[in-house]
């Protein structure tokens, strides 16, 4: 009985050594990333083609030279660009995009003033005089005056 007990103990000891990787001391497990890790310190993700993995919605003057200028440039750097008409922009078109650009060509004093609901909180870049007037519609610090 004693023999069996000793054998059993030896077996137990051997298995625990095997499972633990031998006699080496295991390094402590690295601390887990906190659940609220600040996403803003992460590197800008890029695709295999070097483009930034972001989707942009450009609302401007469809068919204009200025729209083409922006789209050609942005297409070189970002994974996805779509375009639309600033005059028709109401916030819903930005659904699913990372950033919206609001822009127009010509005289900014005459550009469309889109009706964007105040509940819209997606990231927006407003451009030039057009952008300043859009800011003014929302009583922002970036307005024309």
């Amino acid at each position: 009985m004693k023999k069996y007990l000793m054998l059993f103990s030896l077996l137990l000891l051997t298995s625990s050594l095997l499972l633990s990787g031998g006699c080496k001391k295991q390094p402590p497990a690295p601390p887990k990333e906190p659940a609220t890790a600040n996403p803003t310190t992460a590197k800008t993700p890029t695709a295999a083609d070097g483009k930034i993995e972001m989707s942009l919605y450009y609302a401007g003057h469809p068919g204009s030279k200025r729209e083409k200028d922006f789209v050609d440039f942005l297409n070189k750097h970002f994974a996805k660009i779509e375009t639309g008409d600033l005059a028709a922009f109401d916030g819903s078109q930005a659904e699913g995009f990372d950033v919206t650009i609001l822009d127009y060509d010509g005289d900014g004093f005459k550009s469309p003033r889109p009706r964007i609901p105040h509940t819209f909180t997606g990231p927006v870049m407003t451009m030039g005089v057009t952008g300043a007037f859009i800011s003014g519609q929302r009583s922002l610090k970036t307005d024309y005056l």
Partner: protein
Amino acid sequence: MGDAAHVGSPAHIVFSKPFIVNPTVEEYDTPSGYRRFPGGKELPDKMKVWKVQNSEKKTYGGVVARSYGFTDSPDAEAIVLGVNNGKEYGAVGIGRHGNFLQWGYSSPPSEMTEAGQKLFLNCLCYIKKFDGKAPLVTRKGYPRDNAVRLAALINRIKDKSFFESTFPAELKEKYDGDPDGLVEYYKDNFEFIYRERTFLIDSDLKTLGLSSNRTIETLEKLIELLDSDEHSETAQKLLIRYTQESFEKREQWQNWHAENKGRFFFSDFGGYKFFVVPEGYLITDEK
């Protein structure tokens, strides 16, 4: 605003991530328009600038936002000061308010300099972080710097209603025709300026021996003074004036303060009031 930006602090993340922005620095004559504004006469003859774009217009076409009150709330930041000839030195060429980032320059990317293009790309990456971060304040008041700025113009603006619509009636007899005197009056009382139709000086606050209407210390002192028989009525009046709350009981003010301690800010732009930053609103990463 034209093509250039003032050389400022490159510490902001938009100058380094994801692309390093290397502006080519040059010197411009200080725009003559700056001299009309408070502090303008003290500026040097030349200033360091860098070109964001090379437009046909060169000196106009873009737009800057006024600097007054621009940074009086934590939801806004001035990223680039734009070289301009219509507003003050310090006016904002590229700035953020909440989830909106305004790029005040006029040119499309093909006319931007290499540094301008990189800054543009970086700004697009940067504003993405502010998804859901609506502005904490919107325009409800004209920041107090405007009192000084407009005081300097009383002899140049011909509209007869200008003085009465901007400054309290009791100042007209003493300062009408005396812009220097009016400017000094508002500079001497700068920390007590608030606006209710006109730019007023808070004499109630002065009677309490406080030094400013916009410091956290003042807010806390007013709440303390609710315990004072002599000053509680004035303290209550000022707390109503400078907050969005209308509590009637001292304990309510104390509880409100305790619940929000460390998250108060004062904004002239938002209506000369103390506001509370919602928990989790601020993004505390490198700038």
